[in-house]
């Protein structure tokens, strides 16, 4: 069976190559910092299960130290210039989109076939992970296609990949760090504290205000944790179940489903949701690391209000 550790090995090998190429890049002033940083990522992906919890903890501290004290930086591996790219674009025309579409199309068709035909019943792939597997398959097919068609230098995919990952930098690792922070918040009982505080903030007898505090609490706690998944059980235990469902007789399906979506409005407004908000800012090379959040706030706030109204009108109809 194809399990996640196959994909970890693939990604780990890629990061190991980035580390090696960084170390050999004599034109790069921070080459050993970059080599160490991507080397630690490679170690995590290839050997994370073998080095123990404390070992992983030290690994994370190493990543944070390298990034936090400015020991890593952008690189400029060999690539093509703007004019040369314009030339390729005109010569190759719209056929250039075909390899770009291989990855999403493979993931799409693969996922559909696996889920809606008997192929999935054979159990070839770890449960619920099939899209990732087909994503990786798409990457390999796309690479093979590009090599057969355009014959780039053998190291080009790794050098171009390194150019992009160095442009993203530590933002590539931050989402995983934040997920780990969420676990520590939970272990230290932050959820119970927040739940208790929000409960005290609710005036008795007003269904609307209770719904409003529930929705706002979901959004705010999601902003703190960076993730609505962490906020939902806390808010459900503090307000959703005891007050809205049991106390006022609200429809549990509406309270649950739309409550979660009120949390998603919070996700749009917080740097803690790094993979959605900070990573694309780095990936698109924005000057303002909060630029994506700024573009989202005016969608998120009215949507939060509407979600609160949907709960109020639909759950207590």
């Amino acid at each position, binding site marked *: 069976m194809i399990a996640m550790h196959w994909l970890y090995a693939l*990604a780990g090998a890629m990061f190991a190559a980035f580390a090696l190429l960084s170390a050999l890049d004599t034109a790069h002033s921070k080459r050993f910092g970059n080599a160490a940083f991507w080397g630690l990522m490679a170690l995590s*992906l290839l050997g994370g299960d073998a080095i123990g*919890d*404390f070992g*992983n*903890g*030290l690994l994370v*501290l190493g990543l*944070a130290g390298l990034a936090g004290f400015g020991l890593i930086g952008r690189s400029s591996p060999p690539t*093509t210039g703007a004019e040369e790219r*314009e*030339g*390729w674009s005109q010569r*190759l025309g719209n056929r*250039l*989109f075909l390899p*770009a579409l291989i990855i999403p199309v493979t*993931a*799409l068709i693969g*996922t559909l076939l696996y889920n809606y035909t008997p192929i999935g019943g054979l159990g070839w792939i770890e449960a619920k992970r099939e899209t990732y597997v087909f994503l990786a398959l798409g990457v390999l097919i*796309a690479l093979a296609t*590009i090599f057969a068609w355009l014959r*780039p230098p053998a190291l080009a*995919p790794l050098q*171009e*990949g390194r150019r*992009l*990952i160095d442009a993203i930098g*530590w933002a590539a690792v931050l*989402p995983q*760090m934040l*997920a780990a922070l969420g676990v520590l*918040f939970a*272990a*230290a*009982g*932050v959820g119970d504290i927040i739940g*208790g505080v929000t409960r005290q903030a609710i005036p008795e007898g007003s269904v609307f205000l209770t719904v409003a505090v529930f929705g706002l609490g979901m959004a705010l706690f999601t902003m703190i944790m960076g993730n609505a*998944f962490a906020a939902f059980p806390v808010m*459900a235990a503090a307000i959703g179940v005891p007050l809205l*469902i049991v106390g006022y007789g609200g429809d*549990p*399906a509406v309270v*649950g489903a*739309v409550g979660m979506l009120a949390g*998603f409005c919070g996700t749009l407004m917080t*740097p803690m949701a790094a*993979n959605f*908000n900070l990573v694309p*800012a780095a*990936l*698109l090379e924005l000057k303002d*690391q909060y630029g*994506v959040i700024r573009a*989202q706030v005016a*969608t998120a706030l009215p*949507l939060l209000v*509407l979600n609160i109204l*949907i709960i109020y009108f*639909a759950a207590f109809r």
Partner: protein
Amino acid sequence: MNYWPLLGIALVVIGFALKLNPMLVVTAAAIVTGLLGGMDLIEVVSTFGKAFNDNRIIAIVWIVLPVIGLLERHGLQQRAASVIRGLKSATTGRLLILYLAYRQLTAAIGLHSTAGHAQTVRPLVAPMALAAAEKQHGTLDEETAETVKAYSAATDNVGLFFGEDIFFAIGSIVLIQQTLVTYGYNLSPLELALWAIPSAICAFLIHGARLLLLDRRLGQKP
């Protein structure tokens, strides 16, 4: 009740507000929160490390970078831009509304991982949106280019968040169901997914309207 662990949250808020390096902020907050929550240092570091290891799936998406980089090397972004330049009626807003609908619909049938910031926004959506903006506005100053790029990423997020919960077999629906089961409410995932539809429509209307406003702003020549 012991309120001290909240200090970790305060650290995060202050750190992000001061734009300190988030890797350090997060690590410091994790250690402080763990210590105040009653763990010893070894325990904190181990818990942090285990959680990091358990979340390695987040790093998988980077395997697309070598392909994206290779295609950029051969002019993919330039190609995407020139296609948009060739379409008379293409505008940034219309293009992003189309992408918003695509993202919501594919996420709603469980295909949320098939698009994303690395897979589609950087190589295709953002260059196309920029090219359309240039047609509407003329040469873009840096601030306008930043706005168009930020809206491209924002549109991906809004489409994903307010599409994926319509698919009944996604993690958040399972989490809602599991949480409510512990209180004795056994709902079917389909019932929950159904209630994600009104919010999805609202999200499309609000964000779509903002994209049309963006078009209007871009249409005003400098």
